[in-house]
């Protein structure tokens, strides 16, 4: 159950309380997020929508431990990440977060297998165990036959599948997707969303996704709208589209 009023259960997987983020540009202060509350349970699939500059990506960065808030707290699976040191936060990210980016962000000089293997290099798994995990992850995304292909030898949709395999290979606590279909055609975007949906429904993954695309947002269980740095609880994504589009 996703709540934005700060009244969620104390055992929510992700608990955000009073989150503020202010940037200083020159002498000017720009408040991107204001007293934001959020509760996300395990297995939830939530989409964040909103106009450009509304703070969607900033929120995702804060939830992923890539940035630190000005005020407020973020607790994930009982760990409050807002006060972690840089090194601890890096280790936490490796264990708990799977990132999926709009531009796939694969390493072009590594094969699909090697790209997916990257997060596992930070674990103590043996080489053979790493291989098993990578093959399983690539199997889940339907690219078991593309292990030795380089990113340049794959289509955009396939590259994003490899990126998804990289995100799930270490079995993180939740996935953060920043416009995962933003660089894809409709057919490939549908396939990617089908895959992410499967990860939630079949594998019980928790997914937080930023998107501009209302059709993509319909695949999420809930769509939240960010307007001027404030989260507005919406209808379910499907209801939102049926009612005339997003935001």
């Amino acid at each position: 159950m996703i709540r934005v009023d700060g009244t969620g259960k104390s055992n929510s997987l992700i608990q955000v309380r009073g989150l503020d983020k202010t940037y200083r540009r020159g002498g000017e202060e720009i408040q991107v997020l204001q007293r934001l509350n959020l509760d996300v349970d395990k297995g939830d699939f939530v989409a964040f929508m909103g106009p450009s500059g509304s703070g969607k990506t900033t929120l995702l960065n804060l939830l992923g431990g890539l940035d630190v808030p000005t005020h407020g707290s973020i607790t994930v699976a009982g760990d409050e990440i807002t006060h972690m040191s840089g090194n601890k936060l890096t280790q936490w990210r490796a264990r708990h977060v799977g990132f999926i980016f709009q531009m796939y962000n694969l390493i072009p000089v590594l094969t699909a297998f090697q790209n997916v293997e990257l997060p596992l290099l930070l674990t103590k798994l043996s080489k053979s165990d790493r291989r098993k995990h990578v093959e399983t992850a690539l199997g889940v995304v339907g690219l078991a036959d593309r292990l030795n292909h380089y990113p340049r030898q794959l289509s955009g949709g396939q590259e994003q599948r490899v990126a998804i395999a990289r995100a799930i290979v270490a079995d993180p606590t939740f996935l953060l997707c920043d416009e995962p279909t933003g660089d894809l055609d409709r057919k490939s975007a549908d396939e990617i969303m089908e895959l992410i949906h499967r990860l939630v429904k079949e594998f019980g993954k928790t997914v937080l996704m930023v998107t501009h695309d209302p059709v993509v947002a319909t695949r999420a269980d809930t769509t939240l709208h960010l307007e001027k740095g404030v989260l507005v609880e919406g209808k379910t994504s499907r209801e939102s589209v049926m009612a005339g589009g997003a935001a």
Partner: protein
Amino acid sequence: MKFSRLVLANLFRKKVRLILTIGSFAIALVLFTFLAVVKSAFSRGTEIAGADRLIVVSRVGLMQLMPISYRDKILAIPGVKAVTHNHWFGGVYQDEKNFFPQFVIDPENQRKVMTELVVPDDQWNNFLKDRQGAIAGARTAARFHWKIGDRIPIKTTLYGGGSSEFNLDGIYHSERPGGDESQFWLQWKYFDENAPAAVKSTAGWYVVKLDSPDDAVRVAKAIDEKFANSSFETKTETESAFAAYFAKQFGNIELLILTIGSVVFFTLLLVTGNTMAISVRERTSELAVLKAIGFSGRAVLFFVLAESVVIALVGGFLGLTLAYLAIPVIGLALTGLLPPLLLSKSLLTLGLGFALLVGVASGLLPGIGAMRMRVVNALRRV
């Protein structure tokens, strides 16, 4: 080891750039090694000088001769074990470019003082019996393909000029690594008989063997005091001090080599530093992704440093191999102009250390930049 694939994959990302950077390392290392070898050749005299030997020369200068009677007077000073004397012969073998040092030696005492220069007994005995005999250093004998029994014609412009032929009775070797094996020794008695009157019964310099190196300062002072206020005052110093003074006659080689070496070092540092900076800038987003998925800043620094160190070590190894092959050839071509060029293991290690230092230094700045890079900012640049 599990990160090696990532490091290697990144290294081979731009093959032409990799080859050019390794090439510049290799060439710089050849130059560095050659300069170091030349410097070592000039300072070798100091390094291999006997700690228990003194050199006595005329206070006026190296070319000023001293009476032969000094030998016994020096020998009488307490702490002196043996004394031998030499003359500079200054001859030419066939052509002026065939330079090698020719010394008129005192056969009676040569082996007592210059103990590290070894001649087999049978060859030495033949030399003693042969007034026109000569002993050549192994390097010089090899250079001119001389063998024992050969007649060696030498022209000299000193001592009234003229040409003489000498019988090669023996070949000496130095027991000290890097020791001088280029000298050519002649008999003092034969030289003295044929020398002009002004040169008769003289010595160019004396070499004094001490009972103990601890006596060096006292004995040197005693020798110079003994001949003070005479017509032929002396200047006595340790063999290493004399070698250093002699090397300086060629100019401040060390400063010259250090200057060129520093220019090579900084140029190489700028070239590789720039290459690494470009290489890191080109993949800012990739490094940011690595940090996002859990690689620490130190790991990213390690990747950048590993790349620059691998480039440096491969380039360094190539350069040292080239230097190892080229220096003997260059040394042979420069025989007579420069002391023997020897590439020692310590110089090879120093060269590799130099490459490593440049590798680390050139990767450090871009590496620290990548380590400190904020993931959020870097991802925004994509």
